[in-house]
């Protein structure tokens, strides 16, 4: 990383300290996010392990970083759960859900599911209203940060947030509609 970023870098001790300091609120967040107190405790434990074993540099805001870490752990669990559900459903249904990239399947079948998923996302994104679609594509497909999307479209940051949020609702609707 560049020199300039090192001033805001949290050292590993700093991150562990931040985790200790924010433990109660993080646990509360994990509980609310999962709806499962025991699972929240498990994930909290996993965060300790990650913070202890990890060696990240360039952490601007340790609290936000820890929340994002918690958020990602929940998402990982969720994806795992959906994958398992998709596997179980495999025998009773010829279709997979839109998240069911079931990697245990045969290659051609995997490819087919992947192609279908790509086609559905592509169609859903292409059908977005123009400005919403543009903001969404610049952010999610081209990988621009929200601030850069705002600058390139000449709109405010919160305008970008609104476009992207609206796009995600459209997407959910159109993916669900095809089921």
């Amino acid at each position, binding site marked *: 990383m560049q020199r300039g970023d090192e001033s805001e870098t949290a050292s590993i001790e700093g991150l562990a300290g931040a985790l200790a300091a924010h433990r109660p609120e993080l646990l509360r967040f994990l509980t609310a996010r999962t709806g499962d107190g025991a699972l929240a405790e498990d994930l909290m434990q996993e965060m300790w392990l990650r913070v202890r074993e990890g060696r990240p540099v360039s952490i601007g805001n340790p609290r936000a*970083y820890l929340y994002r870490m918690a958020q990602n752990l929940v998402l990982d669990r969720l994806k795992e759960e959906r994958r398992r559900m998709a596997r179980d459903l495999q025998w009773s249904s010829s279709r997979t859900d839109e*998240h069911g990239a079931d*990697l245990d399947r045969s290659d051609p079948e995997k490819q087919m599911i992947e192609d279908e998923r790509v086609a559905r996302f592509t169609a859903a994104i292409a059908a977005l209203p123009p400005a919403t679609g543009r903001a969404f594509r610049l952010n999610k497909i081209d*990988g621009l940060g929200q601030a850069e999307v705002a600058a390139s479209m000449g709109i405010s940051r919160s305008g970008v947030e609104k476009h992207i949020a609206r796009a995600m609702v459209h997407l*959910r609707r159109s993916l669900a509609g095809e089921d």
Partner: protein
Amino acid sequence: MVSEDHLLAAARWHVRSPSDDMDWDGFTNWLEADARHREAFDAVALDDAALADCRAGVAAALEGGSVDIARSSNDEVTANDDWPATGANSLRWWRWAGGAGAAAIAAGIAAMIMVPGEQPASPPAKQYLASDGARRIVLPDGARVALASGSSLSVAAGDATTLTLKGAAYFDVPHRTDRTLTVRAGDFRIVDLGTRFEVTSTANSLRVTVAEGNVSVRSPRLTKPMRLSAGQGMLALDRENVIEPLKVAPANVGSFRRGQLVYDNVPLAVVAAELGQYTDGRIVLEPGVGQRRFSGSLALGGRGEAVANLARLMDLQLRREGDVVRLSAGGGD
């Protein structure tokens, strides 16, 4: 069924969450207020993750007008050889994208709407696949590429200097004043200034190492371009949103060409993901294992040999279930 209002609120929280000024207390309160909020958020987060997983495919399907964007980036690069350390650089580029690019994007959408049910006309000028074993490619301008098994490299239509990589490749690019080569991988662009380097991208990570010369790495995720010279590298972990520097012995850059993967203090999650590109099955790390660091070299020998070696070197327990390999802590004894 999740209500429209809940979905919109969930999407707003989701959109804000990458930002350092996200109101996490407010988000927690919102989640606690109604169990349906969680359900709505799950749906939005899963959609976003699913899109991220197949982003390259969607990008290719959507991009009929990528040529102009690629050419613009190239012009901009030649004009700014010394990479001013402000954000203005990338900003200017993308402001352009807001002009002509928008028209190209709009045209692409219009074309797609008019021919429903057909695949949009998206093919890059050329796509190279190394489906079985590494492959050597010589690009029209003389750059030589070794593409690792299981990887793909596309050349943008009409612009042979913009390449899109999935997987791993080693680049040997003679220096020329009249062009720069840009390798796109995820939301990173590696701009080469006449050099030898390796890029390995997986769904959640990007690793760049330089054997000779310099490359410049650019991304919306970096405040300014990173310049890497011989013996240096960088590792980006998407999930953790962390970018860290790497050290590398120049001789080990592109080592996959001799059937070897060499790592120095790289998280197992990354090693497993990179290794996964060479094998048919899937490598799954049990919680906690992915953060451990691996230093050493793995031979890409027969089937599953590398992952077995990795397990042994890291004292992990290996379990095979069909074509899934699970690695968990506390093996050996």
